[in-house]
């Protein structure tokens, strides 16, 4: 008999002796993960993170620190008869995620707090907590797949293309990936809900979360204003050609590529046959929002910093790809992948040259790289620090 017999989580231990920590948010996905693993007979421990004062998000003082999601998670854990703990990461989350979110908007960028959260709180602190509890792995409800091929652990897109979350996991390190498990990666959301029904979970019909957790109604500007009172300065909205078209209440309300809600009275571009105007540049220092035609958003070269790579053979790749490595890239979560050449620069920097220009690339978002031969294999990425447009 082979001593390397592995269980469904890829661990060489009998199922009942394999301890798994499940990161439970109180939503359907992670609840199903906990239920599935418990059903299989694993030694499951649920952990839920208290990340922010729920009263802050609801603008209500005196509400319980925890939102309904935490109570849902506790209820599911009790129903599944698994140990469950709520960990307080409020201070850390405020420092590492919320403050960064506010400062990033103030600097004219468009941040992705969910990546920062994965990078810091979830895959650093929660992961080490799981290890402290003697767990063999940490399972989450992300729709991505983890595959071991030829001794290398790959991170692939989730089978459900609509739900794929690989974009948000670009900063996952190889070491973290070795310890992580994503049991929903091979399933569709419909299948997940069916399983929730089968396991009679009370959260079966709970709607998917759409927003950033601490911005429940999508009004991120309100949150930035509460985090940084007094730091937001009104300014002017200027056309690329120099004309002043109106005023704004703070650059934080604008994102590169934004067309709607510019607060310039639906004014069209007179010079260019009445075509719509887009935000083409945000000058946070001068408190100016620059608008122009769509063509001014065209961007073909993207600079990345703080890159993280999951290439199986990084050094070879770097050496052999002096002329640029053929890859696919995704420049925002909702975009599709497009072909590009990847160049490794000094330090933790890199740049991408797109085959065809793209429009409305915002700094602060991530440039996520997929394999040039198989666009379902995610190979890492970096934060977009610069995406020069034809207008500049």
């Amino acid at each position, binding site marked *: 008999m082979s001593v390397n017999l592995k269980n469904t989580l890829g661990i060489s231990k009998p199922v009942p002796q394999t301890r798994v920590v499940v990161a439970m948010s109180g939503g359907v996905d992670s609840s199903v993960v906990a239920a599935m693993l418990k059903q299989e007979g694993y030694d499951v421990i649920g952990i839920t993170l208290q990340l922010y004062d729920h009263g802050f998000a609801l603008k209500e003082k005196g509400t319980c620190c925890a939102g309904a999601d935490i109570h849902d998670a506790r209820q599911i854990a009790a129903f599944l008869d698994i140990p469950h703990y709520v960990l*307080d990461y409020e201070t850390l989350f405020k420092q590492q995620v919320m403050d960064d979110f506010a400062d990033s908007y103030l600097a004219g960028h468009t941040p992705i707090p969910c990546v920062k959260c994965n990078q810091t709180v979830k895959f650093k602190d929660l992961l080490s907590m799981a290890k402290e509890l003697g767990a063999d792995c940490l399972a989450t409800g992300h729709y991505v797949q983890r595959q071991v091929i030829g001794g290398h652990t790959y991170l692939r897109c989730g089978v459900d293309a609509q739900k794929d979350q690989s974009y948000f996991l670009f900063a996952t390190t190889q070491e973290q990936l070795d310890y992580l498990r994503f049991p929903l990666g091979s399933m569709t959301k419909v299948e997940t809900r069916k399983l929730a029904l089968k396991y009679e979970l009370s959260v079966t019909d709970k709607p998917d979360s759409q927003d950033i957790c601490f911005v429940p109604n999508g009004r991120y500007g309100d949150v930035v204003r509460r985090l940084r009172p007094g730091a937001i300065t009104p300014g002017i909205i200027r056309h690329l050609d120099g004309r002043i078209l109106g005023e704004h209440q703070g650059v934080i309300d604008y994102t590169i590529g934004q067309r709607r809600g510019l607060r310039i009275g639906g004014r069209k571009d007179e010079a260019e046959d009445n075509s719509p105007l887009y935000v083409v540049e945000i000058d946070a220092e001068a408190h100016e929002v620059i608008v122009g035609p769509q063509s001014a958003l065209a961007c073909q070269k993207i600079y990345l910093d703080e890159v993280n790579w999951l290439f199986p053979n990084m050094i070879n790749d770097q050496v052999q790809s002096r002329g640029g490595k053929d890859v696919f890239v995704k420049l925002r979560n909702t975009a599709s992948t497009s072909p590009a050449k990847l160049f490794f620069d000094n330090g933790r920097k890199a740049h991408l040259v797109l085959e065809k220009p793209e429009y409305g690339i915002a700094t602060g978002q991530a440039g996520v790289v997929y394999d040039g031969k198989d666009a379902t294999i995610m190979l890492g990425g970096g934060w977009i620090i610069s995406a020069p447009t034809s207008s500049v």
Partner: protein
Amino acid sequence: MPQPIYLDYNASAPLRIEAVECMKRLMGPPRNPSSVHYFGRNSKLIMETARNQLADLAAGNPSGFIFTSGGTEANNTALLEFDKVITCITEHDATLAARPDAKKVGVKRDGEINLDELETQIQRDKSDGSEVIVSVMLVNNETGRIQPIEKLLEICQYHGVAFHSDMVQALGKIPVKLDDWSRSGLTMASFSAHKIGGPPGVGALWVASGSRVSKLLKGGGQEKGRRSGTENIYGIAGFGAAANAVSNWKNHAKNWAQWRNNFVSKLQQAYPEIQVTTRDALCVDNTISLLLPAVPAQIAVISMDMEGFAISSGAACSSGKVQESHVIKAMGFNALSSNVIRISFGWENNEDEISALADALIAMYKRYKK
């Protein structure tokens, strides 16, 4: 997994067998003590028996006890209608949140209320003719610290202000002498059944004769018009039976001080930096508030749960989140306030269990420190 060892009596004690038996016997017949008929009379008798049992344990006039839904309701009722409330920064939330406008007097490093500060505050609050009440707990739920009740009474009597004490954690652990203390100015005291082995959801407010009390719940005028609502008779009977059973508390508590000392010495031998937050101050013997400089409380509590020991960090939100303790913070522990755990034992424990916890804590500490 074997049944975990329970060392969190200050959160809630196991239900005493005497309370279980007593409540079981009563269940079935209709039990409205206000009814005129046989069933009503019988229920009334059960209520009054319980009141006498509680009175015996707390050495207070039975008619002073108003049964409530618990310690929280008792504290809220006590403080409801006074113009000004002066309390202590380390009180339970059932006091602090009952009167958010209360002035909070600080504590010394060992958890004792700052008496000079209290006196100054009384003088200030009384100066405009306001009706003032001072509310200070007899035993702190997180640290076990015993507050100097005689001195507190002396100060309040001298200044002619009312004095309420949350005695929830004192009953069954140290002598409670309501009648004696009322002669020195005690106005009201709060109690809770589930801390002494009665059922949760029942408590009492004791009011010294001649003192008036506010009505939090208005309605049918039960409890001599002082607390309306049909009485929780099973709970009240269970409370009485537990009080009766706990009256020999000195017997099972006689070794507690020894257990506590041995536990602390064992830990300090392994890691001298581990400390009792109250140091050598006067505390109830069943409670140990322990500072683990290298391990956050949430990790200690979770690790111990995984190993079969039920302990706490003293302050848990209803979400189950372990949060920084306002009590420990007020004692000046600052950044280390999140590194304090609470061990509280009781009549079902033995020294082997407490010693086993010490071993598990030492092993965890070693793991975490490296």
